[in-house]
């Protein structure tokens, strides 16, 4: 460490968050955004659908990362909110006549309220047990929704064609509308998580993650901060769930509350890099790049993903993005503040 | 002949360097005190000897055998026991169980449960209650007895007096001569300088991870010790 205090004077300093990478990144990001916005105009249907899937998986990954990577709330039961959001979309479009696109944020808001009593239950379980508690809750929804005849019971329900047609008369129009919605969801998810982490609340969260004891002594209200994160993640996850089942047009308890949603997301975040915004993006890219060539291998693909996640957690817990930042000091989403000193030599 | 011989030991807590080239030796049956301010590296040094803190040294010999790279649980089996700072009794174990677990390695020797009870009769009366339900002084007795149960050749004591009333400290320290009489070498870390000077054959003073002074208590002046202890002189 260099000691500047003796023969140099700090003439000025500023606290900065942007990095060269983040400035280049925002230019690249803007160009990428333009390309992605225009995709329905030149891409074929399969490409559009693939990107919709990439967008919602990435959004889920960001939500889970916010919860676990920043909030320290390791939930393996987020499929509860994916399923709830999906069912909520079906209920409010079919029974209350809302438009399908507007039903997406509305589903998120309703599920945020539902998440309150759930939080009341699962927050009673500490640490590791919280994880399994959230899983039990998801199972309760899985088994419970199968018992509701008006929602089709165990075999599920399809979205009536009229509701789908209300989005747009043509198939291409619907695909484009859903695509743009998905793009909006993923961009706003990343933006909100980014802004949240840059805010005072984000600082509090980082403090909690780094040391629960220390942040307690600093007067950071752990419980309140964690609860807010949990509710926000419930809102986001449910809205994404609504989007997912709008693209699938059919919902059943076993598809909606499937643990595999969470499994996929956990693997993506862990392999990409937990506790960063870039990590889930990288993880999602890796997941889809590997999935296409390996989809024929089914179980082996999952074995590979699981083993990779285990090895990453053991050998490089900061994930692949962690390895990259460590080597190149690269940050596209600089959440941390850095002190820049101007030295008078 | 030295029982313990250490040359140029360094130790780190992740990125933070706590010891900078500490050298020390202890002869058989000798009592050595390590003194110094808070954070001077005394405890880290003891924990390095027991293998709890990773360290590097040019020489790190115990009875002529190198301890470098040995894990803590094996070092106990070679005859080095420690009374850790803050007693650290096991809450799930009764007083007697806390003592028995000291003999986990079943090293042969003279120390038995009966002898520990002889030394600290209070403990026998309370042997079935949880160790952590005892008073601070009694807990310290258990911690010493527990260390002795491993039949050590060398006993490391970390801050025996910490948090105890003066009269109880006297009690605790009065046990040390009888342990010494068994030929056990003692390395005592102590913030209470007077207590340390009283029992030690030699002292080492730690300052910012280095040895700042060493010698026999009778050869050292108050001023020398104060300088070595605080890093400043009274002058």
């Amino acid at each position: 460490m260099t000691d500047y205090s003796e023969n140099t004077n700090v003439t000025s300093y500023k606290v900065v968050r942007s990095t060269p990478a983040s400035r280049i990144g925002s230019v690249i990001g803007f160009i990428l955004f333009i390309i992605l916005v225009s995709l329905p105009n030149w891409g074929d249907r399969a490409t559009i659908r693939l990107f919709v899937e990439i967008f919602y998986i990435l959004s889920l990954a960001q939500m889970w990362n916010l919860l676990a990577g920043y909030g320290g709330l390791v939930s393996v039961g987020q499929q509860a909110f994916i399923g709830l959001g999906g069912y909520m979309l079906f209920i409010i479009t079919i029974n209350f006549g809302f438009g399908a696109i507007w039903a997406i944020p509305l589903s998120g808001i309703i599920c945020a309220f539902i998440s309150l009593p759930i939080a009341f239950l699962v927050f009673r379980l500490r640490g590791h047990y919280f994880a399994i508690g959230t899983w039990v809750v998801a199972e309760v929804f899985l088994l419970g929704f199968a018992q509701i005849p008006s929602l089709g019971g165990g075999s599920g329900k399809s979205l009536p064609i009229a509701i789908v047609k209300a989005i747009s008369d043509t198939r291409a129009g619907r695909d484009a509308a859903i695509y743009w919605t998905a793009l909006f969801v993923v961009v706003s998810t990343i933006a909100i998580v980014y802004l949240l982490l840059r805010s005072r609340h984000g600082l509090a969260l980082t403090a909690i993650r780094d040391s629960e004891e220390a942040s307690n002594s600093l007067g950071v209200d752990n419980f309140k901060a964690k609860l807010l994160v949990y509710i926000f993640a419930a809102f986001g996850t449910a809205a994404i769930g609504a989007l997912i089942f709008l693209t699938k047009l059919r919902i059943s308890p076993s598809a909606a509350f499937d643990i595999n949603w969470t499994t996929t997301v956990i693997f993506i975040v862990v392999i990409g890099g937990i506790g960063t915004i870039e990590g889930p993006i990288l993880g999602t890219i890796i997941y889809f790049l590997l999935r296409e060539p390996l989809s024929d291998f089914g179980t082996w693909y999952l074995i590979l993903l699981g083993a990779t996640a285990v090895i990453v957690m053991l050998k490089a817990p900061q994930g692949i993005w962690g390895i990259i930042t460590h080597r190149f000091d690269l940050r596209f989403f600089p959440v941390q503040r850095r002190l820049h000193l101007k030295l008078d030599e | 002949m030295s029982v313990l011989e250490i040359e140029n030991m360094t130790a780190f807590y992740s990125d933070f360097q706590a010891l900078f080239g500490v050298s020390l030796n202890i002869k058989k049956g000798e009592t050595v005190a390590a003194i110094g301010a808070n954070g001077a590296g005394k405890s880290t040094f003891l924990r390095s000897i027991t293998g709890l803190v990773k360290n590097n040294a040019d020489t790190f010999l115990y009875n002529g055998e190198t301890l470098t790279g040995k894990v803590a649980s094996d070092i106990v089996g070679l005859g080095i026991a420690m009374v850790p700072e803050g007693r650290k009794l096991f809450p799930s174990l009764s007083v007697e169980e806390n003592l028995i677990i000291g003999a986990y390695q079943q090293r042969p020797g003279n120390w038995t449960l009966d002898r520990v009870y002889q030394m600290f009769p209070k403990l026998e009366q309370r042997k079935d209650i949880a160790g952590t339900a005892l008073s601070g002084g009694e807990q310290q007795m258990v911690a010493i007895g527990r260390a002795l149960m491993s039949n050590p050749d060398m006993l490391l004591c970390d801050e025996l007096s910490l948090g105890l009333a003066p009269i109880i400290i006297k009690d605790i320290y009065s046990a040390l001569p009888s342990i010494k009489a068994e030929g056990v070498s003692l390395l005592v870390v102590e913030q209470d300088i007077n207590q340390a000077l009283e029992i030690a054959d030699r002292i080492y003073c730690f300052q910012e991870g280095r040895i700042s002074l060493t010698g026999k208590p009778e050869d050292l002046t108050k001023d020398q010790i104060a300088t070595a202890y605080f890093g400043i002189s009274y002058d």
Partner: protein
Amino acid sequence: MIEWANTIVQGILTGGLYAMFASGLAIIFGVMRLVNITHGDLIVLAAFIAMVVIETTGFNPFLSLIIVLPIMFVIGYMLQRGILNYTLGDDLLPPLLVTFGLSIVIQNVLLEVFSADSQRLKAGAIETSSIQLVDGLSIGIFPLITLVTAIAMIVGLQQLFNLTRLGRAFRATSDDATTAQLMGINHRHIFGLAMGLALGLVAIAGVLMAVRSNFDPSIGPTKLLYAFEAVIIGGLGSLWGTLVGGIILGVAQNIGAKIDPGWQILAGHIAFLIVLVFKPNGLFPRTRDD
């Protein structure tokens, strides 16, 4: 009336199996402070190993344990020393995410090797024989054996933990692994032994489960949840609590199934959530000095 009595008695007998699932989980948590998400998959793994042993040797399921149990012990020891010991620390994420990843790996390896077909171990006449207590109420011999085994297991574990050198080492390491090392206890080895012991219990539980009901590679997570619920209902750290927890779960499931077959598992989960609301520390929370 007698029907309901029967439901409750059958529920208690089922509870024995759940207590067995739970005691392994409780030991792992008790000694290592680790929640092992692979627990259910390891139960299924034990069942499949027993199936292979039975096919190759022709042993009956009970006898197969003399091979399955040591295999599971060794798997447990190696799992702990080779992988899980490296996840221990203040951070909750590594142990959770590593065991979660392993759980997916085990499930899919079993799926690849044994296919998704449902399996069952055959134990002969003992499976169906029962003692009739009164008209309409009888106790199956096999469920009874399961419950008695569970009780014997808990008594044995208590003796082990309270009276033996190894048990003291388990408790001391669980209290404070650093200080335990100063006693000459190699905490890594002790953790390995604890996991080996837990998987020994898992072996017994897995074989008994596989005789009683069908199994396939996908059922592990459900068994994990049962074990977890029994532990929480009973109260963390209490072995007898896991028996009570298992029984409450078993009774709730049987009552649920009687009302509507679709409600069987749901009723168990709901019983768990009710306990969580009113007794968040379980029915028999461990006090520090018991």
